[in-house]
Protein backbone atom coordinates (compact mmCIF):
# COMPACT_ATOMS: atom_id res chain seq x y z
CA UNK A 1 0.00 0.00 0.00
CA UNK A 2 1.00 3.63 -0.33
CA UNK A 3 3.72 4.66 2.08
CA UNK A 4 6.00 7.48 1.04
CA UNK A 5 8.10 7.44 4.19
CA UNK A 6 11.77 6.63 3.68
CA UNK A 7 14.20 5.74 6.45
CA UNK A 8 16.74 8.53 6.17
CA UNK A 9 17.61 11.82 4.55
CA UNK A 10 20.41 9.99 2.71
CA UNK A 11 17.94 7.55 1.18
CA UNK A 12 15.58 10.38 0.30
CA UNK A 13 18.15 12.19 -1.86
CA UNK A 14 20.04 9.16 -3.16
CA UNK A 15 19.02 9.61 -6.81
CA UNK A 16 19.82 13.29 -7.20
CA UNK A 17 21.93 13.66 -10.30
CA UNK A 18 24.59 16.00 -11.62
CA UNK A 19 23.09 18.93 -13.48
CA UNK A 20 19.72 18.68 -11.74
CA UNK A 21 17.55 21.69 -11.00
CA UNK A 22 16.60 21.63 -7.34
CA UNK A 23 14.13 23.85 -5.52
CA UNK A 24 14.95 24.31 -1.84
CA UNK A 25 12.23 25.55 0.51
CA UNK A 26 12.74 28.35 2.98
CA UNK A 27 12.89 32.10 3.35
CA UNK A 28 16.12 32.84 5.17
CA UNK A 29 16.34 30.14 7.80
CA UNK A 30 12.57 29.73 8.20
CA UNK A 31 11.65 26.50 6.46
CA UNK A 32 15.15 25.62 5.33
CA UNK A 33 15.43 21.81 5.07
CA UNK A 34 18.93 21.73 6.54
CA UNK A 35 19.15 17.99 7.13
CA UNK A 36 18.12 17.23 3.54
CA UNK A 37 20.65 19.75 2.24
CA UNK A 38 23.38 18.18 4.33
CA UNK A 39 22.41 14.74 3.01
CA UNK A 40 22.69 16.21 -0.47
CA UNK A 41 26.20 17.46 0.29
CA UNK A 42 27.14 13.94 1.39
CA UNK A 43 25.45 12.49 -1.69
CA UNK A 44 27.72 14.47 -3.99
CA UNK A 45 25.62 15.65 -6.93
CA UNK A 46 27.32 18.54 -8.74
CA UNK A 47 26.57 21.30 -11.21
CA UNK A 48 23.18 21.96 -9.64
CA UNK A 49 20.81 24.80 -10.41
CA UNK A 50 19.36 25.77 -7.04
CA UNK A 51 16.16 27.77 -6.55
CA UNK A 52 15.78 29.53 -3.19
CA UNK A 53 14.81 33.02 -2.14
CA UNK A 54 18.26 33.57 -0.62
CA UNK A 55 21.70 31.98 -0.58
CA UNK A 56 21.98 30.69 2.97
CA UNK A 57 24.14 31.93 5.80
CA UNK A 58 27.31 30.85 7.56
CA UNK A 59 28.74 27.52 6.46
CA UNK A 60 25.74 25.26 6.98
CA UNK A 61 22.68 24.33 4.93
CA UNK A 62 22.40 26.04 1.54
CA UNK A 63 25.53 28.10 2.17
CA UNK A 64 27.49 24.89 2.78
CA UNK A 65 26.17 23.40 -0.45
CA UNK A 66 27.34 26.53 -2.27
CA UNK A 67 30.68 26.49 -0.45
CA UNK A 68 31.19 22.87 -1.52
CA UNK A 69 31.01 24.06 -5.13
CA UNK A 70 27.95 21.99 -5.97
CA UNK A 71 25.79 24.86 -7.21
CA UNK A 72 26.66 26.34 -10.58
CA UNK A 73 23.59 28.56 -10.83
CA UNK A 74 21.29 30.23 -8.31
CA UNK A 75 17.76 31.39 -9.13
CA UNK A 76 17.04 33.76 -6.33
CA UNK A 77 15.45 37.08 -5.32
CA UNK A 78 17.74 38.22 -2.53
CA UNK A 79 21.25 36.74 -2.45
CA UNK A 80 22.52 39.34 0.02
CA UNK A 81 21.50 38.34 3.54
CA UNK A 82 23.17 38.83 6.89
CA UNK A 83 25.87 36.17 7.38
CA UNK A 84 25.74 35.24 3.72
CA UNK A 85 29.43 34.94 2.91
CA UNK A 86 29.80 31.85 0.72
CA UNK A 87 27.70 32.97 -2.23
CA UNK A 88 29.48 36.35 -2.51
CA UNK A 89 32.89 34.64 -2.57
CA UNK A 90 31.95 32.38 -5.47
CA UNK A 91 30.00 35.10 -7.26
CA UNK A 92 32.88 37.55 -7.19
CA UNK A 93 35.27 35.03 -8.69
CA UNK A 94 32.75 34.08 -11.36
CA UNK A 95 32.25 30.56 -10.01
CA UNK A 96 28.47 30.77 -9.73
CA UNK A 97 25.78 32.24 -11.97
CA UNK A 98 22.92 34.33 -10.60
CA UNK A 99 19.44 34.65 -12.10
CA UNK A 100 17.85 37.47 -10.13
CA UNK A 101 14.04 37.19 -10.04
CA UNK A 102 11.68 39.47 -8.09
CA UNK A 103 10.33 37.60 -5.09
CA UNK A 104 6.67 37.58 -6.12
CA UNK A 105 7.53 36.67 -9.68
CA UNK A 106 9.69 33.83 -8.38
CA UNK A 107 6.79 32.54 -6.28
CA UNK A 108 4.31 32.84 -9.15
CA UNK A 109 6.68 31.21 -11.66
CA UNK A 110 7.06 28.23 -9.33
CA UNK A 111 3.32 28.00 -8.76
CA UNK A 112 2.71 28.27 -12.51
CA UNK A 113 5.23 25.51 -13.20
CA UNK A 114 3.46 23.24 -10.75
CA UNK A 115 0.00 24.17 -12.06
CA UNK A 116 0.69 23.51 -15.74
CA UNK A 117 0.62 27.20 -16.65
CA UNK A 118 3.55 27.68 -19.04
CA UNK A 119 3.57 31.47 -18.90
CA UNK A 120 1.74 34.48 -17.49
CA UNK A 121 1.82 38.26 -17.54
CA UNK A 122 2.73 40.42 -14.55
CA UNK A 123 3.35 44.11 -13.96
CA UNK A 124 6.37 43.37 -11.76
CA UNK A 125 9.76 44.48 -13.11
CA UNK A 126 8.25 46.69 -15.80
CA UNK A 127 10.51 49.66 -16.64
CA UNK A 128 13.36 48.26 -14.58
CA UNK A 129 16.64 46.57 -15.52
CA UNK A 130 15.00 43.23 -14.70
CA UNK A 131 12.57 43.73 -17.60
CA UNK A 132 15.50 43.16 -19.97
CA UNK A 133 14.87 40.31 -22.38
CA UNK A 134 11.22 39.95 -21.45
CA UNK A 135 8.33 40.35 -23.83
CA UNK A 136 6.07 43.32 -23.05
CA UNK A 137 2.36 43.43 -23.76
CA UNK A 138 -0.43 45.92 -23.17
CA UNK A 139 -3.59 44.43 -21.67
CA UNK A 140 -6.57 46.67 -20.90
CA UNK A 141 -4.37 49.73 -21.21
CA UNK A 142 -1.66 48.66 -18.79
CA UNK A 143 1.72 47.20 -19.66
CA UNK A 144 2.91 43.81 -18.43
CA UNK A 145 5.84 41.48 -18.97
CA UNK A 146 5.70 37.81 -19.85
CA UNK A 147 7.15 35.36 -17.33
CA UNK A 148 7.54 31.60 -17.68
CA UNK A 149 6.62 28.78 -15.33
CA UNK A 150 9.49 27.16 -13.47
CA UNK A 151 9.77 23.47 -12.63
CA UNK A 152 12.53 21.41 -11.07
CA UNK A 153 13.85 17.86 -11.12
CA UNK A 154 13.69 17.82 -7.32
CA UNK A 155 12.14 19.92 -4.58
CA UNK A 156 13.37 19.51 -1.01
CA UNK A 157 11.26 21.13 1.66
CA UNK A 158 10.61 21.15 5.39
CA UNK A 159 7.24 20.61 7.02
CA UNK A 160 6.04 20.37 10.58
CA UNK A 161 3.91 17.22 10.25
CA UNK A 162 3.45 14.91 7.28
CA UNK A 163 1.51 11.70 6.87
CA UNK A 164 2.65 8.66 4.93
CA UNK A 165 0.47 9.70 1.97
CA UNK A 166 2.62 12.83 1.73
CA UNK A 167 0.11 15.35 3.09
CA UNK A 168 1.98 18.19 4.81
CA UNK A 169 1.36 21.05 7.22
CA UNK A 170 3.93 23.73 8.00
CA UNK A 171 5.06 25.91 10.88
CA UNK A 172 4.14 29.62 10.76
CA UNK A 173 6.29 31.63 8.32
CA UNK A 174 8.34 28.52 7.53
CA UNK A 175 5.58 27.75 5.01
CA UNK A 176 6.72 30.41 2.49
CA UNK A 177 7.80 28.83 -0.85
CA UNK A 178 7.50 25.17 0.20
CA UNK A 179 3.91 24.41 -0.89
CA UNK A 180 4.69 25.92 -4.30
CA UNK A 181 7.94 24.03 -4.72
CA UNK A 182 6.15 20.82 -3.74
CA UNK A 183 3.91 21.39 -6.78
CA UNK A 184 6.75 22.24 -9.14
CA UNK A 185 9.20 19.45 -8.28
CA UNK A 186 9.11 16.29 -10.40
CA UNK A 187 10.32 14.50 -7.25
CA UNK A 188 9.34 16.29 -4.06
CA UNK A 189 11.03 15.30 -0.82
CA UNK A 190 9.73 16.47 2.54
CA UNK A 191 11.46 16.39 5.90
CA UNK A 192 8.97 16.68 8.73
CA UNK A 193 9.44 16.79 12.47
CA UNK A 194 6.67 14.22 12.78
CA UNK A 195 5.34 11.61 10.37
CA UNK A 196 1.90 10.20 11.11
CA UNK A 197 -0.42 7.62 9.57
CA UNK A 198 -3.12 8.70 7.09
CA UNK A 199 -5.92 10.25 9.11
CA UNK A 200 -3.48 11.83 11.55
CA UNK A 201 -3.99 15.21 9.86
CA UNK A 202 -7.34 16.99 9.62
CA UNK A 203 -8.23 17.04 5.87
CA UNK A 204 -9.41 20.67 6.25
CA UNK A 205 -6.00 21.98 7.34
CA UNK A 206 -3.63 20.16 4.98
CA UNK A 207 -1.62 22.73 3.06
CA UNK A 208 0.18 20.41 0.64
CA UNK A 209 -1.94 17.46 -0.51
CA UNK A 210 0.02 14.22 -0.84
CA UNK A 211 -0.27 14.10 -4.62
CA UNK A 212 2.51 16.68 -4.78
CA UNK A 213 4.87 14.70 -2.54
CA UNK A 214 6.99 11.67 -3.42
CA UNK A 215 9.05 11.01 -0.29
CA UNK A 216 8.76 11.85 3.38
CA UNK A 217 11.50 11.52 5.98
CA UNK A 218 11.11 12.14 9.69
CA UNK A 219 13.69 14.50 11.18
CA UNK A 220 12.44 14.85 14.71
CA UNK A 221 14.60 17.73 15.88
CA UNK A 222 15.61 19.78 12.86
CA UNK A 223 18.45 22.22 13.41
CA UNK A 224 17.93 25.97 13.12
CA UNK A 225 20.39 27.65 10.78
CA UNK A 226 20.90 30.63 13.09
CA UNK A 227 21.76 28.36 16.00
CA UNK A 228 24.35 26.50 13.95
CA UNK A 229 25.82 29.73 12.60
CA UNK A 230 25.98 31.27 16.07
CA UNK A 231 27.83 28.14 17.25
CA UNK A 232 30.33 28.57 14.41
CA UNK A 233 29.46 25.22 12.88
CA UNK A 234 30.29 24.29 9.36
CA UNK A 235 29.18 21.30 7.29
CA UNK A 236 30.50 18.77 6.64
Amino acid at each position, binding site marked *: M*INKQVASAAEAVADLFDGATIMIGGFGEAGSPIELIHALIDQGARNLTAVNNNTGSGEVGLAALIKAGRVSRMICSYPRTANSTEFPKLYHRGAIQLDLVPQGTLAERI*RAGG*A*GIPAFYTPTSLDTPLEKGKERRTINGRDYVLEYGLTADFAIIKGRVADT*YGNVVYNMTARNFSPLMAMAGKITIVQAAEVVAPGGLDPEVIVT*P*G*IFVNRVVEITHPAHESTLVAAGESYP
Partner: protein
Amino acid sequence: MSEQKPTGGRTREEMARRLAQDIPDGAYVNLGIGIPELVAKFVPVGREFIYHTENGLLGMGPSPEPGTGDPELINAGKRQVTAIPGAAFFHHADSFAMIRGGHLDLCVLGALQVSQNGDLANWSTGATDAIPAVGGAMDLVAGVKSIYVITQHCTRNGEPKLVELCTFPLTGRGVVHRIYTDLAVIQITPAGFQVLELSPGVDFNQVQERTGAPLSPMADPPGVPKMT
Protein backbone atom coordinates in the same frame (compact mmCIF):
# COMPACT_ATOMS: atom_id res chain seq x y z
CA MET B 1 -30.45 -3.00 -32.62
CA SER B 2 -29.39 -4.54 -29.34
CA GLU B 3 -30.03 -7.97 -30.80
CA GLN B 4 -26.84 -7.48 -32.84
CA LYS B 5 -24.76 -7.27 -29.70
CA PRO B 6 -22.36 -10.21 -29.33
CA THR B 7 -23.49 -12.39 -26.49
CA GLY B 8 -20.00 -12.48 -25.00
CA GLY B 9 -19.69 -8.71 -24.51
CA ARG B 10 -18.83 -7.31 -21.06
CA THR B 11 -21.42 -5.65 -18.88
CA ARG B 12 -20.72 -2.15 -17.58
CA GLU B 13 -19.52 -3.57 -14.28
CA GLU B 14 -17.27 -6.07 -16.06
CA MET B 15 -15.83 -3.27 -18.17
CA ALA B 16 -15.10 -1.29 -15.03
CA ARG B 17 -13.54 -4.32 -13.34
CA ARG B 18 -11.37 -4.97 -16.38
CA LEU B 19 -10.15 -1.38 -16.50
CA ALA B 20 -9.33 -1.38 -12.79
CA GLN B 21 -6.92 -4.27 -13.39
CA ASP B 22 -4.79 -1.93 -15.51
CA ILE B 23 -4.41 0.78 -12.87
CA PRO B 24 -1.02 0.60 -11.17
CA ASP B 25 -0.72 0.47 -7.40
CA GLY B 26 -0.48 3.89 -5.82
CA ALA B 27 -2.06 5.73 -8.75
CA TYR B 28 -3.89 9.04 -8.37
CA VAL B 29 -7.07 8.64 -10.38
CA ASN B 30 -9.90 10.89 -11.47
CA LEU B 31 -13.12 9.17 -12.49
CA GLY B 32 -15.60 10.89 -14.78
CA ILE B 33 -19.36 10.73 -14.39
CA GLY B 34 -21.30 7.62 -15.44
CA ILE B 35 -19.64 4.25 -16.18
CA PRO B 36 -16.26 5.64 -15.00
CA GLU B 37 -17.67 5.94 -11.48
CA LEU B 38 -18.10 2.15 -11.38
CA VAL B 39 -14.33 1.66 -11.58
CA ALA B 40 -14.00 2.63 -7.91
CA LYS B 41 -15.86 -0.56 -6.95
CA PHE B 42 -13.09 -2.81 -8.29
CA VAL B 43 -9.74 -2.20 -6.66
CA PRO B 44 -7.60 -5.30 -7.32
CA VAL B 45 -6.30 -7.10 -4.24
CA GLY B 46 -3.02 -5.67 -3.02
CA ARG B 47 -3.41 -2.31 -4.73
CA GLU B 48 -4.41 1.08 -3.43
CA PHE B 49 -5.64 3.96 -5.59
CA ILE B 50 -6.31 7.50 -4.43
CA TYR B 51 -9.32 9.10 -6.05
CA HIS B 52 -9.37 12.78 -6.91
CA THR B 53 -12.57 14.65 -7.51
CA GLU B 54 -12.03 17.97 -9.23
CA ASN B 55 -14.41 19.87 -6.99
CA GLY B 56 -11.80 19.73 -4.25
CA LEU B 57 -11.08 16.39 -2.62
CA LEU B 58 -8.18 13.99 -2.82
CA GLY B 59 -8.94 10.70 -1.11
CA MET B 60 -12.57 10.31 -2.11
CA GLY B 61 -14.22 7.30 -0.52
CA PRO B 62 -17.38 5.39 -1.37
CA SER B 63 -20.94 6.65 -1.10
CA PRO B 64 -22.07 7.31 2.46
CA GLU B 65 -24.36 4.92 4.30
CA PRO B 66 -27.95 6.07 3.85
CA GLY B 67 -28.72 9.00 6.14
CA THR B 68 -25.06 9.78 6.93
CA GLY B 69 -24.19 11.92 3.89
CA ASP B 70 -23.49 15.62 3.87
CA PRO B 71 -24.63 17.90 1.01
CA GLU B 72 -21.28 19.68 1.34
CA LEU B 73 -19.24 16.51 0.76
CA ILE B 74 -19.90 15.66 -2.88
CA ASN B 75 -18.10 14.54 -6.01
CA ALA B 76 -17.86 16.12 -9.45
CA GLY B 77 -21.17 14.49 -10.37
CA LYS B 78 -22.66 16.27 -7.34
CA ARG B 79 -23.37 12.99 -5.59
CA GLN B 80 -22.65 12.62 -1.89
CA VAL B 81 -19.40 10.79 -1.14
CA THR B 82 -17.10 10.18 1.81
CA ALA B 83 -13.47 11.06 2.54
CA ILE B 84 -10.92 8.39 3.46
CA PRO B 85 -8.40 8.78 6.29
CA GLY B 86 -5.57 10.77 4.73
CA ALA B 87 -7.89 12.79 2.51
CA ALA B 88 -7.37 16.50 1.84
CA PHE B 89 -9.76 19.30 0.87
CA PHE B 90 -8.64 22.20 -1.32
CA HIS B 91 -10.03 24.92 -3.55
CA HIS B 92 -10.63 24.72 -7.28
CA ALA B 93 -7.42 26.43 -8.38
CA ASP B 94 -5.35 23.92 -6.43
CA SER B 95 -7.53 21.09 -7.70
CA PHE B 96 -7.01 22.04 -11.33
CA ALA B 97 -3.33 22.67 -10.66
CA MET B 98 -3.20 18.96 -9.88
CA ILE B 99 -4.96 18.23 -13.17
CA ARG B 100 -3.30 20.74 -15.48
CA GLY B 101 0.09 20.31 -13.86
CA GLY B 102 0.27 16.62 -14.74
CA HIS B 103 0.09 15.33 -11.18
CA LEU B 104 -2.73 12.85 -11.76
CA ASP B 105 -1.77 9.48 -13.19
CA LEU B 106 -5.02 8.53 -14.80
CA CYS B 107 -8.40 9.88 -15.76
CA VAL B 108 -11.24 7.59 -16.83
CA LEU B 109 -13.85 9.27 -18.99
CA GLY B 110 -16.95 8.41 -20.95
CA ALA B 111 -17.14 9.21 -24.64
CA LEU B 112 -19.51 10.10 -27.44
CA GLN B 113 -16.79 9.43 -30.01
CA VAL B 114 -13.10 8.55 -30.05
CA SER B 115 -11.13 8.83 -33.26
CA GLN B 116 -8.30 6.56 -34.32
CA ASN B 117 -5.70 9.21 -33.46
CA GLY B 118 -7.10 9.63 -29.95
CA ASP B 119 -9.34 12.64 -30.43
CA LEU B 120 -12.11 12.64 -27.85
CA ALA B 121 -15.63 14.05 -28.13
CA ASN B 122 -17.55 13.68 -24.88
CA TRP B 123 -19.24 16.96 -24.00
CA SER B 124 -21.58 17.94 -26.81
CA THR B 125 -23.35 16.44 -29.78
CA GLY B 126 -23.33 19.88 -31.33
CA ALA B 127 -27.14 19.89 -31.40
CA THR B 128 -28.16 23.51 -31.75
CA ASP B 129 -31.00 23.29 -29.23
CA ALA B 130 -28.85 21.74 -26.50
CA ILE B 131 -27.35 23.85 -23.76
CA PRO B 132 -23.59 23.44 -23.96
CA ALA B 133 -21.93 22.25 -20.74
CA VAL B 134 -18.28 21.28 -20.46
CA GLY B 135 -17.28 21.10 -16.78
CA GLY B 136 -13.73 19.87 -16.22
CA ALA B 137 -13.44 17.50 -19.20
CA MET B 138 -11.21 19.75 -21.31
CA ASP B 139 -8.91 20.39 -18.35
CA LEU B 140 -8.65 16.68 -17.57
CA VAL B 141 -7.72 15.60 -21.09
CA ALA B 142 -5.21 18.45 -21.36
CA GLY B 143 -3.45 17.66 -18.12
CA VAL B 144 -3.75 14.11 -16.82
CA LYS B 145 -0.91 11.75 -17.76
CA SER B 146 -3.12 8.92 -19.11
CA ILE B 147 -6.66 9.16 -20.42
CA TYR B 148 -8.67 5.94 -20.53
CA VAL B 149 -12.10 5.94 -22.07
CA ILE B 150 -14.74 3.50 -20.88
CA THR B 151 -17.79 3.24 -23.09
CA GLN B 152 -20.19 0.96 -24.92
CA HIS B 153 -18.62 0.09 -28.24
CA CYS B 154 -21.63 1.47 -30.13
CA THR B 155 -24.42 3.94 -29.47
CA ARG B 156 -27.91 2.72 -28.59
CA ASN B 157 -28.67 3.02 -32.30
CA GLY B 158 -25.76 0.77 -33.18
CA GLU B 159 -23.58 3.55 -34.55
CA PRO B 160 -19.86 3.07 -33.90
CA LYS B 161 -18.31 5.35 -31.28
CA LEU B 162 -14.79 4.48 -32.39
CA VAL B 163 -14.38 6.37 -35.64
CA GLU B 164 -11.90 7.67 -38.19
CA LEU B 165 -12.75 11.27 -37.44
CA CYS B 166 -14.98 12.68 -34.73
CA THR B 167 -18.02 14.48 -36.07
CA PHE B 168 -19.02 15.86 -32.67
CA PRO B 169 -17.22 18.86 -31.14
CA LEU B 170 -13.89 17.83 -29.61
CA THR B 171 -12.96 17.74 -25.94
CA GLY B 172 -9.32 17.40 -26.94
CA ARG B 173 -7.15 16.28 -29.85
CA GLY B 174 -4.98 13.17 -29.60
CA VAL B 175 -5.58 12.79 -25.88
CA VAL B 176 -6.96 9.25 -25.43
CA HIS B 177 -4.52 6.45 -24.67
CA ARG B 178 -6.80 3.45 -24.31
CA ILE B 179 -10.46 2.46 -24.69
CA TYR B 180 -12.38 -0.14 -22.69
CA THR B 181 -15.65 -1.20 -24.29
CA ASP B 182 -18.07 -4.06 -23.86
CA LEU B 183 -16.27 -5.80 -26.76
CA ALA B 184 -12.58 -5.11 -26.39
CA VAL B 185 -9.68 -3.20 -24.92
CA ILE B 186 -8.20 -1.00 -27.60
CA GLN B 187 -5.02 1.04 -27.56
CA ILE B 188 -4.49 4.24 -29.55
CA THR B 189 -1.22 3.82 -31.42
CA PRO B 190 0.52 5.90 -34.10
CA ALA B 191 -1.02 3.39 -36.54
CA GLY B 192 -4.53 3.87 -35.13
CA PHE B 193 -6.73 1.52 -33.11
CA GLN B 194 -5.00 -1.64 -31.92
CA VAL B 195 -6.88 -4.40 -30.13
CA LEU B 196 -5.15 -5.31 -26.89
CA GLU B 197 -7.73 -7.79 -25.76
CA LEU B 198 -11.09 -9.17 -26.89
CA SER B 199 -13.89 -9.64 -24.39
CA PRO B 200 -14.64 -13.28 -23.61
CA GLY B 201 -16.70 -14.81 -26.41
CA VAL B 202 -16.07 -11.94 -28.83
CA ASP B 203 -13.98 -12.35 -31.97
CA PHE B 204 -11.95 -9.80 -33.87
CA ASN B 205 -14.32 -9.57 -36.82
CA GLN B 206 -17.28 -8.82 -34.61
CA VAL B 207 -15.38 -5.88 -33.13
CA GLN B 208 -14.13 -4.68 -36.51
CA GLU B 209 -17.70 -4.72 -37.89
CA ARG B 210 -18.80 -2.42 -35.10
CA THR B 211 -15.86 -0.03 -35.38
CA GLY B 212 -15.76 2.96 -37.73
CA ALA B 213 -12.05 2.65 -38.52
CA PRO B 214 -9.56 -0.16 -39.16
CA LEU B 215 -8.37 -2.21 -36.17
CA SER B 216 -4.96 -3.77 -35.88
CA PRO B 217 -4.98 -7.13 -34.14
CA MET B 218 -3.32 -7.72 -30.84
CA ALA B 219 0.49 -7.86 -30.84
CA ASP B 220 1.60 -8.93 -27.38
CA PRO B 221 -0.62 -9.48 -24.40
CA PRO B 222 -0.48 -6.50 -22.03
CA GLY B 223 1.80 -6.95 -19.03
CA VAL B 224 1.35 -6.05 -15.41
CA PRO B 225 0.61 -2.33 -15.11
CA LYS B 226 3.37 -0.14 -13.79
CA MET B 227 3.44 3.52 -12.86
CA THR B 228 4.98 5.53 -15.66
